C-alpha cells in the first residue's frame, strides 16, 4: 500500500491498471486499495503542480509566521482551524521553534494579503503576533522543479 501511495504522490494520474502492472498486483486489488485509502482519509486528493508565473494570472503567495497563545483544552487545534477554514489559506502547519503556525496563503495582490493578515488573521482570539514573508520566486515545489530542464545535446552513440 505505501508503495502505491508513493507512486500516486509522484504522479496522481497513474491509472489503476498502470499501478497494478508496476506493482505486480491485479487491477482489482489496486482499485480496492485506492478506495480504502480514500475512505480512511489517507488519500486526500489529487492535485496538479502549476507554474503560474508562466500564465497571465496575477498571484502572490505569502508565508506567515503566527504566534499564538494556546487555549486550555483545545491547545492549538481550535485556532488552527479558525485559520484554515479560510478558502484562500493553502497550508497550515504547527511548528516547533520560535513561532507556532506556518500559514501559506495565495491571493491576487500584496494588498489582499495585507488585508487578510490585519482584518482576518490578527484579530483571531489567541493570535499574539504575525510576521509575513512574500514568496518572490518558486524554484521547486512538491518535488517539481520550475525551471525548464536543459537537455544534453543529441549524440551519435552506439551502445
Amino acid at each position, binding site marked *: 500500500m505505501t508503495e502505491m501511495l508513493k507512486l500516486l504522490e509522484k504522479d496522481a494520474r497513474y491509472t489503476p491498471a*498502470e499501478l497494478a*502492472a508496476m506493482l505486480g498486483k491485479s487491477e482489482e486489488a489496486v482499485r480496492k486499495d485506492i478506495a480504502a485509502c480514500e475512505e480512511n482519509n489517507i488519500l486526500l486528493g489529487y492535485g496538479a503542480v502549476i507554474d503560474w508565473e508562466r500564465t497571465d494570472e496575477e498571484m502572490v503567495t505569502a508565508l506567515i509566521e503566527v504566534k499564538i497563545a494556546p487555549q486550555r483544552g483545545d491547545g492549538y487545534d481550535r485556532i488552527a482551524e479558525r485559520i484554515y477554514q479560510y478558502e484562500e489559506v493553502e497550508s497550515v502547519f504547527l511548528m516547533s521553534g520560535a513561532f507556532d503556525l506556518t500559514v501559506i496563503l495565495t491571493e491576487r495582490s500584496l494588498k489582499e494579503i495585507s488585508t487578510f493578515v490585519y482584518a482576518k488573521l490578527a484579530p483571531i482570539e489567541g493570535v499574539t503576533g504575525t510576521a509575513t514573508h512574500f514568496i518572490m520566486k518558486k524554484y521547486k515545489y512538491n518535488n517539481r522543479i520550475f525551471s525548464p530542464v536543459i537537455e544534453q545535446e543529441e549524440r551519435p552513440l*552506439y*551502445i
Partner: protein
Amino acid sequence: MMDYDSLLSRKVKSIAPSGIRRFFDLLEDRPDAISLGVGEPDFVTPWHIRDAGVYSLEKGFTKYTSNAGLLELRRQISNYLFRRFNLYYDPKKQMIVTVGGSEAIDLGVRALVDPGDEVIIPIPSFVCYGPIVTLAGGTPVYVETKAENEFRLTAEDLRAAITPRTKLLVLPFPNNPTGAIMEQKDIEAVAEVLRGTDIMVLSDEIYAELSYGDKHVSIASIPDMYERTILVNGFSKSYAMTGWRMGYVCGPAVIIKQMLKIHQYAIMSAPTTSQYAAIEAVRDGDRDIEMMKNDYNYRRRYILEELEKLGLHCFEAKGAFYVFPSIQSTGLTSEEFCERLIMEQNVAVIPGNAFGSCGEGFVRMCYATSLKELKEAFRRMKICIDSL
C-alpha cells in the same frame, strides 16, 4: 594519393561496425522519436555525487591521480564489494580504477589473450567482447544462450565449447541485451565445469545492482573461482554515471599488476574529477541505488505486462534494464520489425541480431525510460503491430 586501405591494420578492418549503429542513424532527424534503444539510465547522477565532483574542482584537484586510481576510492570500492557481495579485494594490489567498465574489459582481455587463444563469449551479449578479443589476436568462440533457458549459460553448452585452446570465459550477467541473470545454482553449475581447468573468467558484473529477484551472486564468491576470476564493475549503470566514465577491475594481484602496465601506458589514470565523485557514490550511494532500482522495477513489471498484451512473448527478465521479447509472432525479421517501428511509428528498439546472430527473432528494449514515454511507446507499437 595515400592508399589508406592498404595502410590500415587488417585486424582493425576485420572488425564489423556495431550492428546497433544503423538504427541510431535512422533516429536522427526524428525529434518525436521515442528511444528504447540506448542502454543507459534516464536518471541524472544524484546531486550529492555531482556535488562531490564540483567540490573537487573548487579545491583544485585537477592533476593525475596514481595510475591505479585514488587510494581512498579503491578502499571504498573494496569496502563496498565486501559489504554488498561478500568479496574481498586488496585495494593496493588487486584493483585498478578504469575508464568505465569498457576499459576494464579491454584490460582483462589484453592481459590474458595471446594469438591462438580462444575466448568463450555467450551471446546474445554486449557488443564489445568479440572485437576486443579479435584486437588482442584471440579467437572469439560464441556460445548461444537460448530463450527456453531464459538466456542463461548452461553447463552443457559451456562444456561443449571448451577446447584445449580455451583461455578465458566471458560471463556477462546480468545480461545486456536479454536481461537474463544467473542464479546461485546456475553459477555453481558453470563453476563445476571450470573447476580443475585453468580457464580464467572475465565476469562483467556492471549490472550486479540491478537484479530484481534474489541478490546477485558473483562467480568470485564461489569456492575455487576467486583465483580465476577477473571482476569487472563500474559506476555507469548503478549510479547513473555513464558520462563520468568510471569503472574498475579486480582480480589476482599478479594479473592486476600486468593489467596496470597496459593501463599506465594507454590511459595513465582515470579522470580525476570522476574519481572524487565516485568516492562519494560508493561511500554514500547505497540509497540512490535502491531508489533507482525500485523505479526500474516498476517499469520492468509494466513493460512485461504490456508486451504480453501485445502478444510479444518474453520470459521474465530479472536483471539490468532490458527486456528481450520474441517478435516471431509478427512474421518479420528483427531488422524488418525495428525498421517498420521506427519509420512508421517513431519508436526505436534494437534488433536482437545486433548482439549475436542467435538474437534473430528478438528485439532489445531498454526500460530505463520514463513511464510516460514507455506508455506512449507501447501505444505506438500497438498501432504498428495491428497494421501488420
